[in-house]
């Protein structure tokens, strides 16, 4: 499945960046890497690898800046993506 044929979701929804190819990532304890498009508190607008945009609760990693990469699970950022090792 590619970005082009993913269903369009409401960018105000926390679900938008958690829509996935292989099932429900929440159930699989997996998380989605996203990029911060508009840094705001408590919800930042973020974009996933398919270009889906959605709200993400950022209290657990705040403050965040535009362009930063976060790991999102269940609509909430649980970690920042650090440098590669």
């Amino acid at each position, binding site marked *: 499945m590619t970005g082009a044929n993913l269903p369009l979701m409401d960018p105000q929804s*926390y679900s938008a960046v958690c829509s996935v190819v292989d099932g429900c990532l929440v*159930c699989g304890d997996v998380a989605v890497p996203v990029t911060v498009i508009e840094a705001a508190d408590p919800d930042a607008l973020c974009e996933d690898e398919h270009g889906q945009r959605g709200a993400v609760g950022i*209290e657990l990693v705040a403050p965040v800046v535009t362009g930063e990469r976060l*790991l999102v*699970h*269940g609509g*909430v950022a649980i970690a920042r993506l650090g440098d590669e090792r």
Partner: protein
Amino acid sequence: MKFVDEYRNAELARSLGTEISALAEPGRHYKIMEVCGGHTHTIYKHGIEDHLPESIELVHGPGCPVCVIPMGRVEDGIAIATLPGVIFTCFGDMMRVPGGNGSLLDAKADGADVRFVYSPLDALKLARQNPDREVVFYAIGFETTAPSTALTLMRAKAEGIKNFSVMSNHVTIVPPVKALLESPDLRLDAFIGPGHVSTVIGCRPYEFIPADYGQPVAVAGFEPLDLLQSIYMLMKQLAEGRREVENQYGRVVPWEGNLRALEIMEKVFELRPYFEWRGLGFISQSALKLSDDFAEWDAELRYDVPGVRVADPKACQCGEVLKGVIKPWECKVFGTACTPETPIGTCMVSSEGACAAYYNFGRFARSKARAGA
């Protein structure tokens, strides 16, 4: 894509496979358990076992949140979902988990207002949008997911949203691992630690595994090379006689975890004295309920729930699969009476369940290998 493409390099995978083989002691059989359902999914989807020598056996653990929900808790959820005026919300896969009398999806078909969400924050949003309805969120998941529920409850409390409540089925990872280590059914050599749970709890909680049980742990990411590298790290520890916790997923997992997430979980939840796990039975202090400060938002206090124990169907062997005692294909109903479309047991529901992951990906590789043998 950064953080993905470089972890799916086939040449590197082959080279890691060779290095892993070189570390295997001739004549020894290794059993390595991946605790997390996300890892099981990666193993089958990307054919990780094809890169490993036959002497290394990957054993699937109980880390799929949907798979470990006992049928009685599904019944409790359905009892709330069918109350008048309730909007019942849960994660997608949870809707298909069979209870004693059907699933939440069946309850929806019969007229209950059951909706799936990917985030508890969306459930809270529904409560804001429907002030004349009661919105209940059926929370499942390990420590990866519990912070999102905690955060949602903090917001509900701060905003004074009273038509929202949570039925918590959150579980914790360490007690079932301890139960498995104590199990006489299973002799393991090493553990692949769950990556995203560790993002929250850090690596320290696993230190008892090498210290008390003499087995190495590698906390691993979810891309194919993450898993192969973690297996390499474990095999290297075994070969060198070291026993410690190592962090393969350092690009995401801090050693101490996410302290802010742990802090809000501490405020919102408290440990249940015991909780039933499918296949593993009752495990003490292995699940989270809402703390007294959040009792007002506790669906189990707000509504009458049956709270009865429902036995698994006789044909279902999810328990043995979850404990790693049998492989998915060794279950009597695997792929016949039990398929992802018509699951009998929870392991066939979620794509991270060992049976569903194997059904979707692994069975083809296995039939190919058998045909070639």
